[in-house]
């Protein structure tokens, strides 16, 4: 069970129609790979974020599969075209079944 998980997202507040914007996301998460052993020699169970998605007004923008080699606090930056005003919805899926969500509205200026 991962503790202290907190998603963060940075999206511009407004854009012009059709503009390509840069979105930055970061989630604080230990990303325990499942390859390490503790001091007693027991394997520390894997606990990672295994999937990240971003949707805009219900349409998928990006869908990422994350693997155990990805470091603590995965940072994902990507570009998206904004056709209209709306809301970006971000979802992270944890190995333990937890789902973390965040959303950011964007206006057309």
């Amino acid at each position: 069970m991962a503790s202290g998980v907190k998603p963060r997202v940075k999206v511009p507040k407004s854009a012009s129609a059709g503009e390509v914007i840069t979105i930055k996301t970061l989630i604080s998460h230990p990303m325990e790979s499942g390859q390490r052993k503790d001091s007693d020699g027991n394997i520390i169970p894997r606990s990672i974020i295994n999937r990240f998605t971003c949707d805009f007004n219900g349409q998928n923008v990006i869908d990422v599969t994350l693997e155990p080699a990805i470091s603590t606090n995965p940072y994902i930056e990507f570009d998206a075209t904004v056709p209209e005003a709306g809301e970006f919805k971000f979802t992270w899926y944890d190995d333990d079944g937890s789902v973390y969500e965040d959303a950011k509205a964007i206006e057309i200026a």
Partner: protein
Amino acid sequence: MKINKMLGTAVALTALAITMPAFADENAELVINGEIPIVTKTAAPAHLEGALDEIMSGWVFRSDETQAMEMDDFDNPAMLFVEEAMVAFETPMGSEGKSCADCHDGPESLANVRPTYPKWNDAKEQVYNIQMQVNDCLTERMGAEKEKYDSQLMKNYLALLASVARGTPVNVAIDGPAQPMWEKGKEMYYTRYGQLELSCASCHEQNYGNWIRADHLSQGQVNGFPVYRLKDTKLTSAQGRFKGCVRDTRAETFKPGSEEFLALELYVASRGNGLSVEGPSVRN
């Protein structure tokens, strides 16, 4: 061509910027989040007369990518620790059931702490740095255990106090009762340590801007501390960095929290009087 010569005058830099655009970023200005202007170069304080004319933040010596990471809180990994400290700030600790927020009206009310410490503590009759002050609060007001000098929580507090003071000029007092300690720090700064017989000044006063292995030597200013070092992926306090420096001279180092390093911290901080508090900063 030595880079420190190029850093020397703005006139030379302007000329070079035309012929050698690769070095144009030596003139880069640091503005955090597009709203907090940071002074990264300014005239040296009076006590450095004859030693340095201009003082420069370590930020100036870093690569474009590292510089950029500090310009936006989202990209600055140290801000994660500031967030952790914000939570700790409001969490009651110890037998008194008090949190930092019970006495202090938000971290912003402590914006004058980072620029002025280490400073003389009248009641305790000695020079205090932020760690000592935090530990006094923990043990005397909150009834909590004191924190280790370089514990994660302690460094988180340092990062929080630095973050609310960003843009404020460092202004450490070197006269009055703190002066003997400052003199001691100054003597240390110019004392050669270790098998390599290096003083702080050998690198950070006489050779800043030059290469040391694959990196540029900075002036060793501490206005950006605590720093998030990319190679360590964690926060480092000023005294933690001193330890690394002294170790690199192949000497037995002093301990973070020792009187020697406190004196050195006071002296080195005073060398940056006039630069903005910039921490938590990003360095390689």
